[in-house]
């Protein structure tokens, strides 16, 4: 491995992405080349140094506060009647109610239709009788038998 190849592999070496043979070649070159060794020390040293940054741990009760915030931002989610099991129950009840309502409406409509038909038939019969009476009266007046 020459200097150019070594420098091109700085990132892979830092991230342990080199295969074992390439790693040996990399380390051998760096150990024997003062220029690459200096550059490698600076490059890897900065990375190691960055790793020393300390960040705060979560404060006590963070999870509880997050759940409370969930309730504040989504108030409806906390209502028991919107829990999944209740939502399914309500959806089922609504579906049954709509089906029953539809069936009842259809029955009422059917009955009403039958009544109208019967009424119409009765009226037609009545009209026919009345027509018959007129015809009979005409026959009587003219002296013919019907």
């Amino acid at each position, binding site marked *: 491995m020459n200097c150019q190849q070594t420098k091109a592999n*700085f*990132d892979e070496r*830092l*991230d342990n*992405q080199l295969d074992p043979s390439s790693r040996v070649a990399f380390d051998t070159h760096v150990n024997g080349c003062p220029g690459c060794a200096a550059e490698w020390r*600076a*490059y890897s*040293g*900065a*990375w*190691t*140094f*960055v*790793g*020393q*940054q*300390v*960040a*705060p*741990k*979560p*404060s006590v009760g*963070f*999870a509880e*506060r*997050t*759940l409370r*915030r*969930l309730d504040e*931002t*989504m108030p409806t*989610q906390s209502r028991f009647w919107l*829990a*999944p099991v209740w939502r399914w129950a309500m959806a089922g009840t609504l579906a049954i109610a709509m089906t029953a309502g539809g069936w009842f409406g259809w029955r009422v409509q059917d009955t009403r239709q039958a009544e109208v038909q019967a009424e119409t038939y009765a009226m037609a019969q009545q009209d026919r009788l009345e027509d018959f009476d007129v015809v009979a009266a005409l026959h009587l007046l003219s002296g013919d038998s019907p």
Partner: protein
Amino acid sequence: MLRVRRGDRAAFRDLVERHQRGVIQTIYRAIGDSWEAEDLAQRVFVQVWRSASRYEPTAKFTTWLFTIVHNVIFNERRRRARRNAESLDALAQPDEDTETFGTQFADAASPDPARAAAERELQARISAAIRRLPDNQRTAVVLCRFEGFSYEEIAKVLRCSVPAVKSLLHRARETLKEQLKGCY
């Protein structure tokens, strides 16, 4: 996460407890304010709860989670820039919170005031150097250095290719090397 998708709050609580450290610290490294970091982390977890139905079990959860973290940080920094609440210079300077936190850390590690001050100064310089990086470079550095993400996972979070991630990391390392010269 599958239980969270079904609306299981106990599972959600477990999930928060398991990932709170990584989320808060990642945001802290970008924002530099521990209170703000916790506030934004809560926003991230609320977003996780709301978007749980869209989570595909084929995707690794941490990749999905840190995509949300990256977006929240990006939006927050954009909001700050828009409102001019903090100038870029102020963002790069060690803020009061960083110093306070550094003091607490240093005091816990060493009772020597001079050493504590030196430690505080080093922490401030590292924090400032990381915060000065462009968004994608900083996310790549934080995920690689502190969260142990692979190149492929970082690529998924940033929605870019693996070579692009390598390039981001290389440029970030060169910048950090220059900015932290003489510190190590």
